[in-house]
């Protein structure tokens, strides 16, 4: 079903989230929507799904026109919204999740009719989710959970599907599965709005692309007429000069792993990382890249092999011991594992190393001073140590976590997907912060699926697959052509797309 908006406006206090936004989605076409954090994408998605009411403007869906939707009306009009974090009932099975709210009840007893079940199976086939119908949604991989969300939309015969960052947490192979489903829905005549930070992905997948900035549409083009640089320029309003990793002398070996092996997981991991070095680690989801971070940080143990940190044997049994050895981890899921959303940014920064007098008496003044210093140094916005992370953009939240470990004096900093869910401009600042830490002598292990990110900052890249390091790539050779085939395990140099279904 076609969907269009006219001059949508929405303000929160003095800030305008939407400032006259008109966009449209057409059946059988995929409309990409990109923009920096805070550009208004999320607000627009929420207006379209009925979660918030615009101040003015109008919406047209099929032959319905009105000034606002409610979630119920949106559903009734065939709009389905698929968020980055799927809203599934984790303990219910696949079929139960699809049927949730649509069960046929007879005298209060739930009965799934035969035709319902065959519909469910059709939907699952359509999205390519091949798991037993009773598998609890919580036991599915993130990619399968996304597919289940899409299957739900298909089951409800949604005519318009809005996808908000569906691939943000997924590896390349899993992304491919989502793309295929999107293409299948497109051929089935669904109108799709596709929100993403992955610009190349948007250009490859979508028919049209709209760029938002400051609550306004600043660019609307056919993707065939657009390249990534155009989008970046439109998003940030100016061009980012390409950066090269500067040559610099590396210091002593900081962390050295020799044959680190787990019963199930890491196999024979051997590498060194030096002071001032940025060591990139790449690999698909499940390749062991995050596991390696957990082992170094004392969350997981290992059975065989040794680690040394600055020449001393190192075998942390808890994150606390890792922190005491001045190792820091910026985890993949910053909301769950790093940030205290309702405590001030300042308290978040000083958490591992609060300035104290004695008996644990906190020196509040120096704490504020320290927090301000790091907020300024990393350009955290808003520059107020009292702001809570909940009120910050993803990029600034990430900078708070990085500031935490630099403040704690980490000699080895591990970052697991620091650029995930963060817009281009903020990602650049995060990379700059990492670079600054490395220049100051910190050894950095940067885990990333974004080859571009590694290209910009890593001194070399180790590629992992199935718990092993399968290759090392020097700074000048880092590219999708070198990294992806190693990560995927294909012998010939295939391009990123189509190498695995």
């Amino acid at each position, binding site marked *: 079903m076609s969907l269009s908006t006219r001059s949508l406006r929405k303000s929160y*206090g*003095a800030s305008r989230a939407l400032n006259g936004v008109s966009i449209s989605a057409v059946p059988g076409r995929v409309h990409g929507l990109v923009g920096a954090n805070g550009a208004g994408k999320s607000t627009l998605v929420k207006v379209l799904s009925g979660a918030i009411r615009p101040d003015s403007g109008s919406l047209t869906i099929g032959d319905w026109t009105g000034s606002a939707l409610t979630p119920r009306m949106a559903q009734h009009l065939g709009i389905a919204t698929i968020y980055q974090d799927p809203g599934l009932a984790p303990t219910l099975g696949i079929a139960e999740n699809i049927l949730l709210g649509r069960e046929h009840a007879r005298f209060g007893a739930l009965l799934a009719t035969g035709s319902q079940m065959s519909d469910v199976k059709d939907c699952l086939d359509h999205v390519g989710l091949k798991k037993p119908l009773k598998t609890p949604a919580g036991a599915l991989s993130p990619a399968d959970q996304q597919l289940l969300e899409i299957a739900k939309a298909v089951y409800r015969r949604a005519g318009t599907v809005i996808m908000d960052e569906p691939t943000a947490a997924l590896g390349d192979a899993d992304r491919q599965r989502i793309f295929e489903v999107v293409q299948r829905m497109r051929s089935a005549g669904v109108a799709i709005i596709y929100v993403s930070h992955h610009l190349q992905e948007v250009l490859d997948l979508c028919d049209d692309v709209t760029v938002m900035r400051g609550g306004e549409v600043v660019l609307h083009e056919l993707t065939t007429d657009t390249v990534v640089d155009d989008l970046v320029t439109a998003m940030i309003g100016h061009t980012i000069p390409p950066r090269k990793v500067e040559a610099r002398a590396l210091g002593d070996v900081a962390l050295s792993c020799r044959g680190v092996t787990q019963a199930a997981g890491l196999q024979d991991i051997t590498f060194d990382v030096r002071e001032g070095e940025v060591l990139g680690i790449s690999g698909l989801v499940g390749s062991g890249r995050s596991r390696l971070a957990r082992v170094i*940080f004392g*969350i997981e143990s290992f059975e065989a092999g040794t680690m040394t940190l600055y020449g001393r044997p190192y075998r942390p049994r*808890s*994150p*606390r011991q*890792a*922190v*005491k050895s001045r190792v820091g*981890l910026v*985890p993949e899921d910053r909301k*769950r*594992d*790093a*940030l*205290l*959303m*309702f*405590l001030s940014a300042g*308290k978040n920064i000083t*958490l*591992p190393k*609060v300035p*104290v007098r004695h*008996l*644990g*008496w*906190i020196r*509040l003044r120096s704490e504020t001073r320290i927090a301000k210093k790091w907020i300024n140094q990393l350009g955290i916005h808003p520059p*107020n140590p*009292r702001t809570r992370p909940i009120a910050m953009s993803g990029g600034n939240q990430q900078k708070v976590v990085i500031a*935490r470990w630099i403040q704690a004096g980490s000699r080895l900093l591990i970052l697991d997907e620091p650029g995930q869910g963060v817009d281009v401009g903020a990602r650049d600042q995060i990379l700059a912060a990492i670079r600054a830490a490395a220049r100051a002598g910190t050894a950095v292990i940067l885990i990333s699926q974004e080859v571009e990110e590694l290209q910009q900052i890593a001194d070399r890249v180790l590629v992992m697959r199935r718990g092993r390091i399968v290759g090392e790539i020097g700074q000048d050779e880092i590219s999708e052509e070198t990294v992806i085939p190693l990560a995927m395990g294909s012998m010939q140099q295939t391009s990123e797309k189509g190498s695995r279904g």
Partner: protein
Amino acid sequence: MTVDTATETTASRGEALRAWMQEHRAKLALVAVIALIVIITSTRSPVFFTWGNLQNILVQVSVVGILAMGTTLLMVSGGIDLSIGSGVSLCGVVMASLMALGWPPLSAVAVAVLMATVIGASTGFLAAKSDNHPFVLTLGVLTLLQGFAFIVSIGPVTDIPASFIDVAYLKPLGIPVLIWIFAAVTVVVHLILRYTTLGRWLYAIGASESAARLAGIRVHAVKVTVYAISGLLVGVAAVLMTAQLSSAQPQMGMGLELAAIAAVAVGGTPLSGGRGDVLGTLLGILLIGLIGNSLNLLSISSSWQYVLQGGVIIVAVLAQRKS
């Protein structure tokens, strides 16, 4: 306001005020309700607005207030201890029985407080080991302690030396000793939460246990510590309550945990933890004490007092919803 906002425009100062009010809306609502009760009651009862009556109120709430302070620490860290009421019963009867056996009061008090602290620490240890919410676990401890209290004494223990009871009626500087102790506990708990690393870790664990652990905080040790502190306060409450009643009986603490949790929750500390402070709890305690006191003075039957108290708690909790 802070140094940061001082330099900013008046517009952002208005914004800051709004943010502050939003932040403290639970407390503002409490202050409003308390003011309302004070105004209504003082127009109808000449006794209400007197120093003597205020002392009455504070003495009445001091035991549950002390327990509420421990519960504040627990709830900020995302924990809870339902066993504190039966802990008061057990420690009360143990202490009274020891005194009845001829122990010197000071030793009996020391045993009671030490026992309460050890029980608290053990509960904390179990809570730290368990993956489940401590609600059910401490419900088990509640029942266990209640059982032990009955084993120690099936009925009231009244054979308590007068020298012990008299202490509860001391009035240093004209203020009852119970109020002094309640005040001291309040101040210490406030200082812990606001100015110490322990307090910071409690907020961190309540906000996100996994983030706290990954920041290098000893989550288990902190949990044992906070349950032990709450246990220590249970011991203090048991001593004061026994002195106040001039006896101990195995059900003396029944329901105290619910009153304490209600006061903390009404004061704006959510069950999920990560937020809250002592001032809110203090207001919550005052509200509960005031309702009982003013309804007494207005000679409203105690059955209606329950109804009104429950109603006020419900309204206060609903008023804390996020807009």
